[in-house]
């Protein structure tokens, strides 16, 4: 009998989403343990003492696997089913490179640009976001998804810009990823969020909007404080 899979996650996290969609695509049943990140459980802290973040994958009695993209690779290697990473070594290297680029050069500046108060710092992040998203736009090369016709690793890596994009822009009142400037990315957002396997792992849009609306003041305070300190 297959060993039980548990996933420690939290509502609305794009990182947790990556792990969920990977498990879903491989047809792996799992128990989702919902974490309140403002009051972290002993379970989470025990299994991820280094980063204390979600997602955390528990497979059978093996110790935890942490870091969402590593979980995606693990799920790809440990379970049968359609490949989540490209099969060709060069394409795999490209996927890993661009996933890191998204984490370091897109997600962070985008978050800062969207939530910061107007000013020089915000303008800097807006410029950085636009420049880096342009590189990502070019990567799509007219494809439906980053690796072609099927969702995969790099789409999951970019998911923070997918189903969360609309809710974040709505709540923050910002619009950074316009259809005129980023037509391929906007088409990708549509394609990704309407993919059957992906949409099964997405919370309803209204819940995401409500979630961000509730956290808006806290987020704005935090990002503005970060900029003051630096």
């Amino acid at each position, binding site marked *: 009998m297959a060993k039980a899979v548990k996933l420690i996650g939290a509502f609305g996290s794009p990182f947790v989403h990556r792990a969920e969609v990977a498990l879903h695509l491989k047809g792996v049943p799992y128990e989702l343990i919902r974490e309140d990140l403002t009051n972290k459980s002993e379970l989470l802290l025990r299994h991820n003492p*280094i980063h204390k973040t979600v997602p955390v994958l528990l*497979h059978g009695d*093996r*110790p935890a*696997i*942490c*870091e969402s993209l*590593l*979980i995606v*690779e*693990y799920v790809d*290697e*440990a379970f049968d089913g359609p490949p989540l990473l490209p099969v060709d*070594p*060069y394409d*795999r*290297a*490209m996927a*890993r*490179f661009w996933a*890191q*680029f998204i984490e370091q050069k897109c997600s962070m500046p985008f978050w800062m640009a969207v939530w910061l108060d107007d000013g020089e710092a915000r303008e800097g992040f807006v410029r950085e976001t636009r420049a880096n998203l342009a*590189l990502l736009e070019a990567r799509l090369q007219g494809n439906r998804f980053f690796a072609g016709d099927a969702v995969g690793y790099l789409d999951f890596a970019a998911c923070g810009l997918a189903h969360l994009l609309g809710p974040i822009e709505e709540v923050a009142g910002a619009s950074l990823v316009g259809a005129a400037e980023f037509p391929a990315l906007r088409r990708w957002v549509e394609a990704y969020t309407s993919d059957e396997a992906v949409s099964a792992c997405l919370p309803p849009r209204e819940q995401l909007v409500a979630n961000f609306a509730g956290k808006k003041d806290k987020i704005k305070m935090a990002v503005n404080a970060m900029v003051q300190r630096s």
Partner: protein
Amino acid sequence: MAREGDLKLLGLVVSPFVVRVRMALSMKGVSYEYIEQDVFNKSELLIRYNPVHKKVPVLIHHGKPICESLAIVEYVDEVWGGGAPPSILPADPYERATARFWATYVDDKLFPAWIGVMKAATEEEKAEKVSQTLAVLLHLEEAFAKCSNGKAFFGGDSVGYLDLALGCNLFWFETLREMFDVELIDEGRTPLLASWAQRFGEAAAVKDLVPNVDKAVEHAKKMRRVFVH
């Protein structure tokens, strides 16, 4: 076995990330053309093959560039996998995930901390960065206990992915000891890492690729002139 001309590596002798890739290529017995870069005056070649980051290492295979050292090591392991050359990553998916986790931890947490020691403008800043580095190394000491399972290396009986990821930084620890009299890996605090570091330094697979500490000292002085005000 790749012929020269098929495979090129853009590098910097004292970059731990480049040393890591060279060690991986050496483990596979692969030959390549090595092209040293001046990172203070970047070449057209570097900018062309790594336009996004303009950094070394860049591996160019059949004219196609691969960037980011850990991605390069995985690529090398996959392309020259199977048969005689040793595997760099473990075979088991769980052990692979663990090795990747700690390798990323080395790059995200250890590297910025020790670089901070090298670039520190004041004694207070240096002490803070040393403290951060030591804290990270304590976690890596625990990681060694878990990953090695009583064997000589993170990878078991022989050098593997995580050994390369951490080991390529060791010559810089010696450099920092020489420049600032700081002991980062010591027998008292991290005995397992201390004895592992000794074994890593002597491992046939990698020992001829460790750069001279003098070169690193020279580079550090240049970096401090450029970056420290």
